[in-house]
C-alpha cells in the first residue's frame, strides 16, 4: 500500500495558501485510507463513509491548529478515531435487521460459509479490541488498521517508540486472554 502521507506536506502548504484543488487532491490521496481504517474500526461501510465525511469536516475546521509535528495523515487518523469514538459513545436508536418477520435472503454464492466465518472472527477480534483500555485500543487500531508506523504513533501520543511497542505487547496479551475466554 502506498503510504498516503508521503506528499501531504507539499499539498498542505498549497491548501494553506488557499488552493482548493490542492485540498481536493489531499482528499483524493487520503480518503481511502481514512475510510478503510474507520471501516476496520466500526465494521460498517455506510457508517465508515459517514464518519469519513465527518472526519474531513472537522479537519478543515481544525486545519489552522495543525502544527506539522506529525504527518498530516496521522493527524487525520486521530480525528477519524476520535470521531468514531464519539459516534459509539453517542446514545442512538439501534434498528436490528434480524427482527421477526424480516425476509430471509438465502446466500448461494460459493464460499459463503467461509466468508461468514471470517467475518464472525473479524467481528470478534474487533469487539475484543474495543474492550481494550483507551491507550492500547488506539495504539492497536492506529498501527494495524490505520497503517501508522510505530514512530508516528509515538509522535502523536508524545511517547517513545519503545512505549508504543510495550503497549502493543500488553494489548496482545489482553486480546489473547479475551479471545480464549470466548472460545
Amino acid at each position, binding site marked *: 500500500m502506498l503510504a498516503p502521507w508521503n506528499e501531504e506536506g507539499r499539498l498542505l502548504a498549497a491548501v494553506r*495558501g488557499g488552493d482548493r484543488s490542492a485540498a481536493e487532491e489531499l482528499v483524493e490521496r487520503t480518503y481511502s485510507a481514512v475510510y478503510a481504517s474507520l*471501516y476496520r474500526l466500526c465494521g460498517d461501510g455506510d457508517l465508515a463513509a459517514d464518519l469519513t465525511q465527518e472526519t474531513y469536516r472537522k479537519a478543515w475546521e481544525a486545519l489552522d491548529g495543525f502544527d506539522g509535528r506529525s504527518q498530516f495523515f496521522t493527524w487525520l487518523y486521530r480525528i477519524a478515531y476520535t470521531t468514531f469514538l464519539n459516534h459509539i459513545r453517542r446514545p442512538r436508536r439501534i434498528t436490528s435487521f434480524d427482527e421477526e418477520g424480516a425476509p430471509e435472503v438465502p446466500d448461494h454464492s460459493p464460499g459463503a460459509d467461509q466468508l461468514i466465518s471470517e467475518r464472525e472472527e473479524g467481528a470478534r477480534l474487533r469487539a475484543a479490541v474495543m474492550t481494550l483500555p483507551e491507550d492500547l485500543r488506539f495504539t492497536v487500531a492506529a498501527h494495524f488498521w490505520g497503517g501508522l508506523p510505530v514512530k508516528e504513533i509515538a509522535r502523536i501520543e508524545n511517547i517513545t517508540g519503545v512505549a508504543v511497542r510495550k503497549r502493543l505487547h500488553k494489548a496482545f496479551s489482553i486480546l489473547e486472554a479475551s479471545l480464549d475466554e470466548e472460545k
Partner: protein
Amino acid sequence: MTANRKADLQRKLTLAPVAKPPAGLAERIKREIPKDLRFNAETERERLSKAVSFNLRVAASILILVSSAYLGLQLLSRLDEKQSVTQQPARNPVAVRAQPKVLTAPAAAKEETQVPAAPPVVREKRAATRHRRPTAVASAPVPAAAPTPPAQSVNAVAEQRASGIMAFDRVASKSAAVVADVVETTTSPVSGKEMRYSARDKKVQVVTSKLQDERITPWASVSPAAKLKILETELAAGGDRKAIARVAREAGLTDFADSIEKR
C-alpha cells in the same frame, strides 16, 4: 504468550477486511471543502502583533499604575512629615516661645558663652530670631494666662540650643510665619519718630497717617524684635550710632549694640 500466538494475532489484525470506499464518497467530501481555506500568514502575523502590543500596553499600564501609586504615597508621606514638623511647635506655642522670657540671667549668660563663635551677621540673625519669639507669643491667642514652664526645663532647652541644634530655630521661624500679623507702633527713642513694625513682614515704616484704632505702645513694652528692627532702620537711616547702641543695650540687644560699636 507464544511467538506463534502473537504472530497469529498480528496476522488476524493485519488481515482485517479492507473495504473499498463507496462511489461518490470523494465527491461528497470535496463538496464540503470550505470556500475560504486560506491560512493567511499576514492575518496571523497581524493577530500576533496585536496580541503582543496588547500585552505590552497592559504591562505599561500596570507599570504606570504602580509607579504613580508609589509616587503618590511618597508625596503623601512627605506632606505628612512637613505638616507634623509645622504643627508640632504650633500646637503648644506658648511653651516653646515663652522660653526666652523665663530664661534666667545665668542661663542666658551660659547660652551666650556656649553658642559657637559666628560672624556678626549670623549673630545678628540669631538675635533677631531669638527676639522674634516673644513677638509671636504676644500675637498668640493664648495670652499671659498660660502657665510658664519651670526654669529647669527652659534651661535644658537653652542648653540644647547652645549645643548647636539649629533645627529648633528653623522650626521656630517657620511656626512664627504661621502666626497672624502683629503690628506694633511706638515712638523711636533715637529719632523721636513714630514707627510701625509689622511682625509678619518684618518691616518698619515711619508712621505718616495713623490706622484706625492704632495705639502707640510705649518703647519699653515693645517686643525685642520690633525694637531691633526699629533700631536697624534708624541705623540705616543714618542715626546716631552711639545713641542707637545705647538704646539697644538698654533694650537687652547686646549683640546688636556690640556690632554697632565694633563698626
